[in-house]
């Protein structure tokens, strides 16, 4: 076929009818996509564009960069920025520390037991974040379950400061974020063939070496996916830090709420949104780049 001259092929039997048919098919597909595309345009692209537009005007309606200048000038903005990243890093780290062994255990369980355990991992998803956060308050506050028990057992004399502070935010958010890490990680661990580990041990690797040199590197894509999801969700999280932080832990989303709700400064609030979006996209790009580099290079090269 390839030996035929191009014009021969383009004027072949039914060539025009077939081309028209292909065109009709792609138009049909576009038609099917269009409701979704329009919806995405109206509820995502337009508002974000408007947000960006708003952020360019100061309180007097003048075009200015004042809303963005605040990020470097005002200490409270910088503190919010740092707090947000502190929380996001800590929560992501804790999720990895707790979630990795959990996902590993799930992936090694027999199918039936694993699906039962997975239900327990997913169960919290079916309750509202608000309810779960209040539940943590009940457990962690000064006269909550934990402190009462510990005092009754005589382990401590003063209640531990577990709620209405940084620690409370971390505990609550870690709990809420955990499934977002465990689920993609579990899915990727399930695809790791047990024969890889058998092969590693057969070739002389003790179980720990087999784990670190074979299982762990192969689980990295799933771990990275989970970490990205958790980290980015943390950056924009509102409910739990607002309730568990007792007003002492101000994160990005809370500042946005304050700026727009309390001070009605839509320009400044929009700027916060735009910067958060930009940072998130930047991080996503960074992760993608890092993952891409890892996938194409040889992991065990060292």
């Amino acid at each position: 076929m390839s030996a035929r001259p191009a014009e021969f092929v383009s004027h072949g039997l039914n060539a025009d009818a077939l081309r028209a048919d292909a065109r009709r098919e792609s138009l049909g597909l576009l038609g099917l996509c269009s409701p979704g595309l329009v919806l995405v345009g109206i509820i995502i692209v337009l508002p974000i564009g408007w947000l960006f537009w708003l952020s360019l005007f100061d309180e007097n309606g003048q075009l200015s960069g004042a809303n963005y200048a605040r990020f470097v000038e005002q200490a409270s903005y910088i503190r919010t920025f740092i707090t947000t990243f502190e929380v996001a890093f800590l929560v992501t780290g804790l999720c990895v520390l707790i979630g990795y062994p959990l996902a590993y255990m799930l992936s090694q369980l027999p199918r039936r037991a694993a699906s039962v355990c997975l239900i327990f991992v997913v169960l919290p998803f079916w309750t509202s974040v608000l309810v779960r956060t209040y539940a943590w308050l009940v457990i962690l506050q000064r006269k909550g379950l934990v402190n009462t028990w510990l005092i009754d057992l005589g382990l401590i004399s003063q209640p531990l400061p577990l709620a209405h502070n940084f620690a409370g935010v971390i505990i609550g958010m870690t709990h809420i974020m955990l499934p977002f890490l465990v689920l993609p990680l579990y899915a990727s661990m399930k695809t790791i063939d047990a024969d890889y580990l058998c092969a590693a041990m057969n070739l002389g690797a003790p179980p720990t070496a087999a784990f670190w040199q074979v299982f762990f590197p192969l689980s990295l894509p799933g771990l990275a996916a989970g970490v990205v999801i958790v980290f980015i969700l943390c950056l924009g999280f509102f409910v739990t830090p607002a309730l568990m932080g007792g007003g002492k832990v101000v994160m990005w989303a809370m500042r946005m709420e304050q700026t727009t709700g309390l001070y009605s400064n839509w320009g400044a609030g929009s700027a916060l949104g735009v910067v958060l979006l930009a940072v998130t996209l930047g991080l996503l790009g960074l992760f993608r780049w890092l993952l891409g580099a890892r996938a194409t290079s040889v992991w065990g090269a060292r």
Partner: protein
Amino acid sequence: MSTARSAPPINIRGIAKRFGSVPVLSGLDLDVASGEFLTLLGPSGSGKTTLLMILAGFVRANAGSIDIGGEEVITKPPHKRNIGMVFQNYALFPHMNVFHNIAFPLKQRRTSAAETAERVEKVLDLVQLQGLADRRVDQLSGGQRQRVALARAIVFEPRIVLMDEPLSALDKGLREHMQIELRSLHRRLGMTTVYVTHDQREAITMSDRIAVMNKGRIEQLDRPETLYARPRTRFVAGFIGESNFIPVESRDGSVWYAGKKVHTASPSPSSGRHWLVVRPERVRLAADAGLGANANMLHATVRDIVYQGDSFICYANLADGQQIALRDYCRSDVLARLPVAGQPVQLRVDAEDAILVADET
């Protein structure tokens, strides 16, 4: 790759394994001689892979002993057994390139970088994969992966090599090529090899000895020629090669079929029902040769002739309706006298080709 190192024998005694309440292996004994290529052959579910997994240490037996060169290894963890293994799906590490896959066992043994590089290169030469060290595993063809898996299993000079259906994923031509290559590699390196397959042709082609497994037991352990010519059970006769099974009866020290005495080279069996096993290529159209003293003559009616290019199969019915198949090569003299469907023929089976096996059912 040193060939001087003597490969140890494997002595397996009383291996038993149950999965839940299902017995997979029940008190299995097997001796693999030093440097031998022994094949475990059997249908799926016969326990051959389980036995291999127990040898490698991935599956814990319920009882038994595995003695490798005088050392009991049944409780040793897999990474201390020093056994090379080629997996059915190769199990090449997808996150490492060819070099690091093959270097993996050397890395575990803390071999120096220089020696590792040298040995990997040597073994790549041996399996004819020169220049592919930097390839990613997913850039390799099936045959190349198979060779990498093999290289990885022998690069650390294991005393024993296990192979779990290593060729089953390859297409027919490549599979036959690799069979010959594996065989000659084994001759050169001389490691004690236990090979698992369900392909009887592959087993016959490659093995020094074959252990035919069925329902967790070894039905027969013999050299391929013996196994083919003298199967001891109906299962073995049916599993290796094609066979005609003719029901016969034994009484008074001789064997009877349809009122006629059957000439057989098998020792006189106990009284009762037995099976006469006859290979299709050992059945001849009687006009082929003069009557021997020890030949069995059978009257039959041709039912169908199937042409297969190099050979043909003739399906015929004996007087009592018993079916029998005959295979011969398409030589001009044979073709000239080829019977047609419906034609009565005389079939001849020499005594040494008539094998008696016990009726197991």
